[in-house]
């Protein structure tokens, strides 16, 4: 047992960090704020070239043949850099939708409403791609950027031609780099995969989205600490005051606990003998969402009035965390799933 990153894994993460710093610097990304389209095709293909989408595909199908643990480390870096776009959806679709693997095709994902029975319509421990609430329209991220939209349900996956949707652009999206559209119904689409694929996607999607969240949680911690060291009040850096220092310490604790959970969930998917991967995925997503949200909030707080300005990027991480917290299981759904697993182990 060695739960530390291998040298290869550290190098992989470092490589993606360098790519993000060079090609997806936040100042560059921010130029697309408020646009209909935030996915820049050339950049998306570079992500593809770096293995972001084909990482887990077998080498016989043109992939890198790596595990979800490796992918989680890559997604942690993408989350840290706030890279916008349907990253998780395109990763999951690689191997199923031609061109998703190398980044030449952008794929989005949505949960198909199933008869109005609500969020846990799938029953059991399934993690919905997004919560389904009967009165809430279907909300689709990045529609204008999508070449393919996939709808997931318990039965499987169908493909929908994005241009055929009667969609309304939602004004003032919370995250200025995640444009949103709403539709009141989804066409049937073309079946492209069965129930086994949708079950796997829900689990792996939760792990990868959780990885994006811990990346952001780590980044907001650094942002807050940097500011706490520079900003002086009462003649001292504010980070010297326990009130601020302890906020920052709590950010570290949340991130590290959630990171251990996310890495363990990813490894459990790769090594099914070591535990229940679905339970691990649900727990990891729950804690990663919390860490990203609470750290985003603390980062703004440490920045004081400046944190409430549009210019300081703390709000972007906080808002992105909100978006991601609605994907692949909300806190309520995940906690209920975990409760169900507790009840099941009691019955055994």
């Amino acid at each position, binding site marked *: 047992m060695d*739960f530390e990153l291998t040298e290869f894994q550290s190098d992989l993460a470092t490589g993606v960090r360098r790519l993000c710093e060079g090609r997806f610097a936040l100042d560059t990304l921010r130029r697309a704020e408020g646009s209909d389209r935030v996915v820049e095709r050339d950049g998306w293909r570079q992500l593809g070239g770096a293995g972001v989408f084909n990482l887990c595909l077998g080498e016989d199908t043109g992939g890198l043949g790596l595990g979800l643990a490796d992918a989680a480390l890559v997604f942690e870096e993408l989350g840290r850099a706030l890279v916008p776009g349907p990253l998780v959806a395109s990763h999951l679709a690689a191997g199923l939708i031609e061109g998703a693997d190398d980044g030449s095709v952008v794929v989005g994902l949505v949960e198909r409403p199933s008869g109005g029975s609500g969020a846990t319509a799938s029953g059991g421990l399934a993690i919905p791609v997004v919560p389904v609430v009967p009165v809430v329209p279907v909300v689709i991220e990045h529609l204008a950027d999508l070449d393919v939209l996939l709808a997931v349900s318990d039965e499987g996956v169908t493909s929908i031609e994005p241009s055929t949707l009667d969609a309304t652009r939602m004004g003032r999206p919370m995250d200025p780099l995640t444009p949103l559209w709403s539709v009141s119904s989804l066409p049937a689409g073309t079946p492209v995969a069965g129930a086994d694929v949708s079950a796997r996607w829900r689990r792996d999607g939760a792990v990868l989205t959780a990885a994006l969240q811990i990346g952001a949680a780590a980044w907001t911690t650094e942002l807050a600490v940097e500011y706490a060291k520079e900003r002086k009040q009462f003649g001292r850096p504010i980070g010297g005051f326990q009130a601020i220092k302890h906020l920052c310490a709590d950010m*570290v604790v949340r991130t590290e*606990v959630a990171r251990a959970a996310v890495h363990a969930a990813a*490894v459990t998917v790769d090594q099914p*003998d*070591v535990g229940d991967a679905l339970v691990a995925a649900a727990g990891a997503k*729950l*804690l990663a969402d919390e860490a990203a949200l609470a750290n985003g909030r603390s980062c703004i707080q440490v920045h004081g009035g400046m944190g409430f300005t549009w210019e300081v990027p703390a709000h972007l991480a906080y808002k992105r965390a909100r978006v991601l917290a609605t994907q692949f299981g909300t806190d309520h759904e995940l906690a209920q799933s975990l409760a169900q697993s507790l009840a099941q182990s*009691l019955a055994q």
Partner: protein
Amino acid sequence: MDLRYTQAEQSFRTGLRTWLADTLPALPSKPSPNDWPGRRAYDTHWQRLLFDAGYAGVDWPVEGGGRGSSPVEQLIFKEELERAHAPYVGVNFVGLLHAGPTVIAEGTPEQRQRYLPPILRGDEVWCQGFSEPDAGSDLASLRTRAVRDGDEYVVTGSKIWTSHAEVADYCELLVRTGAEDSRHRGITWLILPMDSAGVEIRPLTTIAGSAEFAELFLDGVRIPVSNRVGDENDGWRVTMVTLSFERGTAFVGDLLEAIELLSKSVALAHRTGAWSDPGVRRQAGHLKAELDALWALTKRNVSQAARTGVPGIGGTVFKLAYTETRQKLGEFSLSLLGRAGLAAHDSEGLDGLGSLPAEAMVEDWLRGISLTIAAGTSQIQRNIVGERILGLPKEPIRGL
């Protein structure tokens, strides 16, 4: 990242499991919590059994007489003992986890020869005399004075939170040998025989109603200079060496106990009907996520220790998170008991299904309160994270 155990690790586990299954049924019954001589006898008997089976000091190096197990084997050792409900380390805690490792690292060959084997065999019990009434979080301000007189130190002062003092043979004692304001530069580490003249022990009753700790009063106690470990005024460094023996496994037993308590709470919630409340299920599900994550973090910290040979800062992060989760779990289980949880007494349930587990849950809740205080308060731990991990400016400290 690999969570699978190697063949060697698995066979270590299997061997231990077999030994536990053979050994535990033959143990005498547990003494009552306030029967200190009984507790000493029980705990030291267990230590002797471990010793005879070759499991004493799994975390001690071979040259100190220990088993010299890898951090992963230490993790397996603690995991299997907890899962089998084996006795706790109990009165052997200070000897095995603090004093012994210090003597191994810093003691003279004579001191190692004299003090280490009896700890491993369960023949001798140690206690700790570090904190003082006026030196808690700020340990370096301790004032218990040791004055050199020929080949002896004459020690006067008082210590507090000294667990197992009533039954201990020796005390690892920190004393001031430097100037009054010398702080960590004027501290010396001594071995105090507890039967020395001038040692007075006053038990302290905790909010759980037990006499877990004692105050120690030292009035002109004469300690041979040969009982000094390390150099005079070098005791702070000697103490820090002790702390570095920890390999990320400090809370393994506690954590597994918490996982079991959650499972008992879920069973109780089913019995009372509270489980039909989504709010209750949500709390339980959240606690499960936290406990599973802490188990993963334990494996991360142990792996880090195995790679680097030293404990990382991960232990601090773990303690901060674990102690708060444990307290939440305590609140959760108490809330399920309702008014049956107002006494540490197992009342019969009205459903005719036997008694409710109030004693264990109330005890656990009370004990849980100490977790964010003992071994460095959570406030001090947050300073450590802020300053040592994040590099934030230190608190201004008088005298530094």
